[in-house]
C-alpha cells in the first residue's frame, strides 16, 4: 500500500451526488481516505457509523473524511442515507478500482478494496497509512486520532 512520505496518487472520482472530487480539491487540509470493501455489507456499516459519531471531533482537529469503494454513486447515495452519515462517499466505479489500485489496497481476487485508511496532508503528501490485517478487523476511530496527534 502507499507509504507515508509518498506523493498522494492523483484521482478524480464522483461522490454520492455526482459531484467530482479530485486530489487537488484536498489541498490545504488534512484528509483521511477510508477504503472499505462494499456498500451495504454489515461490517462496513458499523465502521462508517462509528466514524460518523466522532466526525465533529475529527473536523475540529482539521481532518476531513471521504469513504472510497468500488460501488457506484447511486449505490453510495442510498448507502449514505441508509447509514445516516454525513461525509462523502467516492465511487471508484469506472474503471473499476483504478484509484484503489493506485493506493495499493485493491483486492484483485475479490474485486473490491481492502479495508484501509490513508491520511493525506495539506501539501497532498501521504502522512500515514494503515491496512487491516483482515477484512473482519475494522480500523478503530482511535487510530485516526493517533495519526492526527503524531503530525
Amino acid at each position, binding site marked *: 500500500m502507499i507509504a507515508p512520505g509518498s506523493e498522494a496518487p492523483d484521482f478524480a472520482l464522483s461522490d454520492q451526488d455526482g459531484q467530482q472530487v479530485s486530489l487537488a480539491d484536498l489541498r490545504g487540509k488534512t484528509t483521511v481516505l477510508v477504503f472499505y470493501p462494499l456498500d451495504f455489507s454489515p*461490517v462496513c*456499516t*458499523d*465502521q462508517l*457509523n*462509528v466514524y*460518523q*459519531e*466522532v466526525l465533529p*471531533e475529527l473536523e475540529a482537529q482539521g481532518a476531513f473524511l471521504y469513504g472510497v469503494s468500488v460501488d457506484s454513486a447511486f449505490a453510495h447515495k442510498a448507502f449514505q442515507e441508509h*447509514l*445516516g*452519515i454525513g461525509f462523502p462517499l467516492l465511487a471508484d466505479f469506472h474503471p473499476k478500482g483504478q484509484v484503489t489500485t493506485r493506493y495499493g489496497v485493491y483486492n484483485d481476487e475479490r474485486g473490491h478494496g481492502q479495508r484501509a485508511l490513508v491520511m493525506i496532508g495539506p501539501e497532498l503528501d501521504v502522512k500515514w497509512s494503515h491496512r487491516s490485517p483482515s477484512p473482519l478487523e*475494522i*480500523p*478503530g*476511530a*482511535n*487510530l485516526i*486520532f*493517533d495519526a492526527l*496527534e503524531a503530525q
Partner: protein
Amino acid sequence: MHSKLSSAGAPPPAEDDHLRGDGPLVVEYADLECPYCARANLVLRDLPIRRIFRHFPVVSKHPRARVLALAAEAAALQGRFWELHDSLMDDQGHLEDPHLWARCETLGIDLDRFEHDRRSQVVAERVERDFRSGVRAGVMTTPTLFVDGVARPGLPGEDLIARLR
C-alpha cells in the same frame, strides 16, 4: 473540554461502573437499541461472570440509542440500572418516551425524578465517558466484550461462552 480520543486500553473497573455477578471479569460495550446486544444479553446473563456494562450508543445507526443510554443512567440514580437494562433488552420494539414511562412505572422508578435526571449534565457526561473510553479502546461494533483485556467484537462465540461457563 473532552478528553482526547487517541488509543488507550479499556479502563479497569471503576467504582461507578455498572457491575453484576461474580466470576471472571467481562467488560461489555453495548448499545441498548442494538439487536445483537439483546441477543448477547440472553447469553451473558446466565454466565457466572463479573459483568460490567458500558454505553456505546451509535446514534447514526440507532436513533434512540443515546436517549436509552441516558434513561438507563437516570434509572441507575435510583438504583434500577439493571432492571431498566433488562427491560429494554427484552423488548426493543417499544422505545419511545411513553414506553419508557410505562417501564418506569412497572419497575417502581420515580417518574418526575427520572424525567429530570435523564436530561441532566451529569448523566450525559456519564454516557459520554463510556462511549469515549470505548472509542479509545478501538470499539467499532456492538457488542464488544473485553475478556482478559482482549477485545472480542460481535456476538460471543461458542469458544468464548464455553470458556466462561
